[in-house]
């Protein structure tokens, strides 16, 4: 049973087809709908919201209060001062880190999207003897853990160890398998007749791909961009291995190192955490629906 087909061709309502069919309201229905819902909301607040509220509160406290780590309102609201202190710390290291992280994310995602789209597209459209091999390599790339020290050795060999371009290429490489899978699944929804039409209109392979196919892949491109951007932005162990010196910090490394620098200043540490949470939050607010749609169609087909 192709679940993918069911998802992508299911009628789309405002809620994306995730509404159950309507049934008459009985006492049991009522209890289920409202009682369980309210309990769930309460539990969700305790389990999922409390940590974020904690971050906010800590970020607004003065050092002594923050050191106590209690879940209470700050005695003095220091939100703005903490923000300034964190940003200025160590010659604006946090700003440099954000810029580095953004460059890293944008460049690696751009490379990833284009290269994997080309691969996924070809995998679906053209069945050659290469296909099983490529499929196997993609699967291997997904499962096999990257060999880190040999990768450092390779990077050093090409002179890119501990540089941002090197990190960009590594992140792009690591993100290829998953992106190729998503693209391959989505290209299936674009009818070949469109290819035919474009070819008959005289389009060469490049034009066919970049002007006809890629625009139609916009939904999955958005999904891949958002999912991979969040993954690269939040990647901690990658820069830990391949970008170790503080000449090129990323925000995750800066946050981790901030622990030792801010030994008695938990308020600054949590302000740093808050700052780092903002870009993914923005991504989430704007692209929530696309993430859901893309992940489910590609991932479930697996």
């Amino acid at each position, binding site marked *: 049973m192709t679940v993918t087909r069911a998802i992508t061709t299911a009628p789309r309502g405002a809620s994306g087809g995730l509404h159950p069919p309507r049934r008459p309201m009985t006492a049991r229905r009522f209890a289920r709908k409202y009682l369980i819902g309210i309990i769930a909301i309460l539990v969700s607040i305790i389990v999922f919201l409390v940590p974020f509220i904690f971050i906010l509160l800590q970020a607004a406290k003065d050092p002594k209060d923050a050191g106590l780590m209690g879940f209470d309102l700050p005695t003095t609201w220091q939100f703005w001062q903490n923000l300034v202190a964190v940003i200025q710390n*160590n010659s604006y290291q946090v700003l440099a880190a954000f810029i580095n992280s953004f460059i890293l994310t944008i460049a690696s995602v751009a490379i990833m999207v284009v290269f994997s789209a080309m691969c996924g597209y070809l995998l679906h459209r053209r069945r050659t003897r290469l296909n099983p091999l490529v499929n196997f390599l993609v699967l291997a790339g997904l499962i096999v853990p990257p060999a880190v020290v040999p990768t450092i050795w390779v990077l050093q060999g090409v002179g890119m160890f501990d540089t941002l371009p090197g990190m960009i290429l590594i992140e792009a490489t690591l993100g290829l398998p998953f992106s190729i899978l998503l693209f391959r699944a989505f290209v299936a929804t674009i009818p070949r007749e469109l290819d035919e039409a474009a070819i008959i209109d005289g389009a060469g392979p490049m034009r066919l791909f970049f002007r006809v196919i890629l625009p139609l892949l916009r939904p999955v491109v958005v999904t891949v961009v958002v999912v991979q951007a969040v993954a690269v932005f939040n990647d901690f162990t990658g820069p830990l291995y391949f970008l*170790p010196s503080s000449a090129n910090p990323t925000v995750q490394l800066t946050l981790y190192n901030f622990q030792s620098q801010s030994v008695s200043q938990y308020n600054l540490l949590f302000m740093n955490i808050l700052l780092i949470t903002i870009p993914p939050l923005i991504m989430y607010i704007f692209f929530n629906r696309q993430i859901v749609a893309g992940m489910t169609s590609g991932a479930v087909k697996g």
Partner: protein
Amino acid sequence: MKFSPLRRALVATASVAAVALTLAGCSGFGSTGGNSGAKVTITYLTGNDAADTAQGKALIAGFEKKYPNVHVKMDTQPTGTQGDNLMKTKLSTKTMDNVFHYNSGSLFQALNPKTSMVDLSGESWVSDLDKNFKQVVSVDGKIYGAPLGTGSAGGILYNKKIYQQLGLSIPTTWDEFIANSKKIQSSDPSVTPILQSFGDTWTSQLLVLGDFANINKQDPNWAKNYTNNTGGAKYVNQPAFEGFQHTAEIVADGLVNKDYASMTNAQAMDALATGKAAQYPMLTSAMATVQQDEPDKINDIGVFPIPSPDAKYTSLTLWEPNALYIASTTTGDKLQAAKNFVAFANSPQGCTIQNQTGAAAGPYATSACKLPSNAPDFIKDVQNYIKEDKASPALEFLSPIKGPNLETILIAVGSQSTTATVGAQQYDQDVKAQAQQLGIKGW
């Protein structure tokens, strides 16, 4: 084709980004800048904690005033095990700063100084150096480092007020130390007899590393045997085993604070200074925290050596100061500027800055620098032990081998997950692995 221009832009960006970034090999925001005009720019690497960065900045400010045509850019990196690895990686990939601040002794040896650093034997300040220090920054008779900061001692920091109140005298044997601790516990249960602070993992090593002076006194050949894998100099055998035993014993006897697993070094120093705890196996360099947070209490704390089972062996273990080194990739104008910077740190002006920005934790290793007259009392304690010849350098200054997992192994022993015997065996294995990795003969 509504989205075509957008799509083209995306592809163009991708290709340009990929090609340009790869070819140009740009090093991202925040990296070392190039020369600005006629000025010579050199780079200086130090630890990212507040004390190191403040000292670095002050030294640079003073140096640039004296040498206006030199600009020094400071970089920082984490200290500890992560810092050790970063040092090795930067030196081997030839991306190290011109001048860098790092430990002396075995950690210095592990950086392969002969190829990675500049020989400084001919510098003017070499003649001022203390004999012990010269040994820990040289290989084959060539000197590679200049001292920065004072040395320190590793022993038991103790709250003098509590000792006075309870009429305790400084213990000279381990049994006396335990007896003192038990007396402290019974007279006031709210006071911790012995602090442990595994929230900062490196602090777990004190009872083993700080015991070395005792071992050295008992068996002066121990360090050599240990390095050459001869004579049964292993941690699983006495006298070295006692360090592991002690780490387990104080916890088993219930003499340790309840929150030992999460307490940090700073919190522990705080507790010691304010009298909430009586004793703490620690380096005197940790007194910098007290200097900063409770300066009026600094003379309430003294130090005595970790006692040996036998009083005649009890000696204080000393740590030599850190040093400034120059990377061998520094050449030409930069090399001269770097040498000047290193010399400046040990000039009278540099010494004053060191006194102002560094918390003294022991004696200086160069006669060019004098301790300030208002140095805290505990330094006099240290100097007394040195004068009475009841002190010797730690093992890392007499042997190039130090197993990298000691702190984790001791935390396991201190948390009672492994016994002292098993811990000592694990560490001996760790030492063997390190020795083999360093290519030392006999392993």
